[in-house]
């Protein structure tokens, strides 16, 4: 009896030892193979990817959309069974620079290797400065100011930069003869809004668009009768709204109440207007916006993404969700690109610095391009800005329709 017991214990111990060895073996393999070629051209290992964005607070809808979109991409990548997986960690920053830096440090303690973030502009500028000195690669899904990427070789944007949005909007309005008299209502307490307004104004002047009314508001404004009234009395045919969707929804309501029905033209911040609870979507009928993503596109990639997202989160994905989705795929594509060129790559246990160098070299490589739901053949320049086609969509019967 004693002998039996002893042998049982011994077997148990042996099994334990073997599993322990197995575990160590993989870990050691991961460390040994950091950056080194495995010879097969395969991408393997687990990447620790961090997302930073406002998951609570006034801008939560953007942060959650990006986190959800990234989650879907990560689930899909993990389900592919290629030996490459992503571990995702999304941290809240409440749309505040200080909290965002805190969130970034939390991710560092977790062992983050690359960051898809941060979602909003001002926090992103703060975090990107930290990430630049720490050498952590960042691909922001939606922080669009030029100062996000300026003088930082490790920061890339998946969305258009602000100047591009402003000038592209002016170009689009002029090319399609949408209007000649334009009113602009913008948030002068917001970097994003003011940035787009300035480039829009400059481009509009070149194209001969007449800006007949320029009015501003701040974050706390809820009464837009002055701004709407000014646009109306100056006879603007089109109101350009380079603002987020919450004030935009109020402007639409108050313009309708004032019996003023010009064309409304927005940019990517307007995306999300249809998902506001209690908002009468018929008011948004005919609103045009410039966005790289439209959920009604018929290509297989977008259809699948929209289907999964709607099943999982119960709403149609916005452009921010699509940006987050593309971020995860773009990073994987970049690692795959490197693995193909250098005969394989195992990312497990690689330091953030090593990955940063690899990803910078790939993203600035002229041969590298990534496909996603927000554009095909996205390429990046050395400044970190993306090059892809903008799409304009119009809201018809409560859904976005490509124009």
């Amino acid at each position, binding site marked *: 009896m004693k002998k039996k017991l002893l042998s049982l214990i011994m077997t148990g111990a042996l099994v334990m030892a073997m599993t322990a060895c197995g575990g160590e073996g993989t870990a050691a393999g991961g460390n040994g193979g950091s950056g080194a070629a495995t010879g097969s051209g395969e991408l393997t290992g687990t990447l620790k990817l961090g997302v930073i964005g406002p998951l609570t607070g006034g801008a939560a809808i953007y942060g959650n959309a990006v986190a959800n979109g990234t989650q879907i991409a990560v689930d899909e990548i993990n389900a592919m069974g290629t030996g490459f997986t992503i571990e995702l960690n999304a941290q809240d920053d409440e749309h505040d620079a200080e909290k965002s830096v805190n969130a970034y440090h939390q991710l560092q303690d977790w062992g983050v290797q690359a960051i898809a973030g941060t979602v909003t502009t001002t926090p992103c500028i703060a975090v990107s*400065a930290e990430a630049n000195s720490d050498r952590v690669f960042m691909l922001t899904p939606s922080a669009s100011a030029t100062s996000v990427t300026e003088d930082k070789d490790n920061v890339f944007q998946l969305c258009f930069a602000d100047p591009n949005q402003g000038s592209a909007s002016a170009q689009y309005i002029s090319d399609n003869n949408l209007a000649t008299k334009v009113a602009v209502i913008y948030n002068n307490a917001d970097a994003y809004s003011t940035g787009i307004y300035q480039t829009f104004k400059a481009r509009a002047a070149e194209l001969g668009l007449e800006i007949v009314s320029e009015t501003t508001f701040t974050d706390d404004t809820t009464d837009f009768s002055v701004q709407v009234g000014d646009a109306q009395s100056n006879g603007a045919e089109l109101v350009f709204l380079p603002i987020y969707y919450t004030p935009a929804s109020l402007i639409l309501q108050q313009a309708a109440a004032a019996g003023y029905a010009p064309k409304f033209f927005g940019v990517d911040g307007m995306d999300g207007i249809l998902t506001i609870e209690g908002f009468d979507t018929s008011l948004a009928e005919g609103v045009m916006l410039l966005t790289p993503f439209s959920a009604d596109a018929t290509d297989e990639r977008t259809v699948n993404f929209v289907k999964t997202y709607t099943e999982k989160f119960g709403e149609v994905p916005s452009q921010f969700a699509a940006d987050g989705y593309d971020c995860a795929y773009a990073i994987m594509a970049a690692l795959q690109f490197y693995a193909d060129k250098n005969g394989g790559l195992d990312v497990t246990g690689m330091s953030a610095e090593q990955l940063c160098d690899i990803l910078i070299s790939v993203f600035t490589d002229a041969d590298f391009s990534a496909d996603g739901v927000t554009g095909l053949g996205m390429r990046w320049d050395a400044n970190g800005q993306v090059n892809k086609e903008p799409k304009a969509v119009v809201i018809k019967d409560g859904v976005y329709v490509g124009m």
Partner: protein
Amino acid sequence: MNIYKNASVASKKAFLNYAIVILFFVVFQTLVNTGSITSALKGQLIPIVCYMIMAVSLNLVVGISGELSLGHAGFMSVGAFTAVIVSALMSGASNSSRLFVSILVGAAIAALAGFLIGIPVLRLNGDYLAIVTLAFGEIIKNILNCLYVGIDDKGVHFAFNNPNALGMDPLGKEIIKGPMGAVGIKKIATFPAAVILLLVVLIIIQNLVNSRTGRAIMAIRDNRIAAESMGLSPMKYKMLAFTVSASMAGAAGAIYALNISTLVPKKFDFNTSILVLVFVVLGGIGNMTGSLIAAGVLVVLPELLRKFSDYRMLVYAIVLILVMLVTNNEKLKGRLDTFVKKLGMRISKGGRKK
């Protein structure tokens, strides 16, 4: 130990605060040097000290002078943006001298703002004063929202509401861009410098409170009419407390700005003022030690609660309420007091043995 034994109660309290700050510094600096601190906590060290300075300086107005001020973040932003400009102008100098001059100028300009705002505000009392300070806090924020500042070879250029009116050389650099704030600030603040600033602020405030002037300020707080009949000018003493407090908030803002690479006026809104007020109230009005501890704990707490993910802010609110209940519980307070007394006796006994 004899010095400690012979010192007055007020000085004992003051020494306790210096000891807390120095202990806090020694512990965390050692942790940083040995590399055994998480980067989350390491990144928060300077903001913690900034909020401690803010809490202590607001306590001077709310606790000692007895006026409820809801616009303290406004002075912080004045100091912060001033420091950004000064630091950019001194780009050739060494980091430590840049930091020193920036904090000094930031504090001076904030003191000026405090003085100017104090003239109308301090003519009021109670709720009216609170509302007007709130208004001035928002006014400062909105002015900064419209301010554009650039630097070129000829010097500093200011413009209001229109960046094109700066009239700069093409080579010039815009350093403050209205609502977009200041971008690309060089990080020159260090933890030791912040702690030294905190100590200086504590020395100034505690000596002020324990001086003739401080007693005058408290006399006016306790009974304005009686104090006035003694020949004390309420306006003069209130103004003194308000201006000193504003300058310290400016210094805190300066070091805060030089620790983060981007700064927007929006950061210094009503919510930040209230946050600092919460530190003061939770720590105990008029209690500097309480302000220090409350600021330290409440700045770190939201980060420690990250594992609750979505429920983080809910848990934070519950913790605030619990702290409020516990600190206002007479029974617990009595026990705590006897404990502190015993501790104090043991220390003086130990001193006697030596």
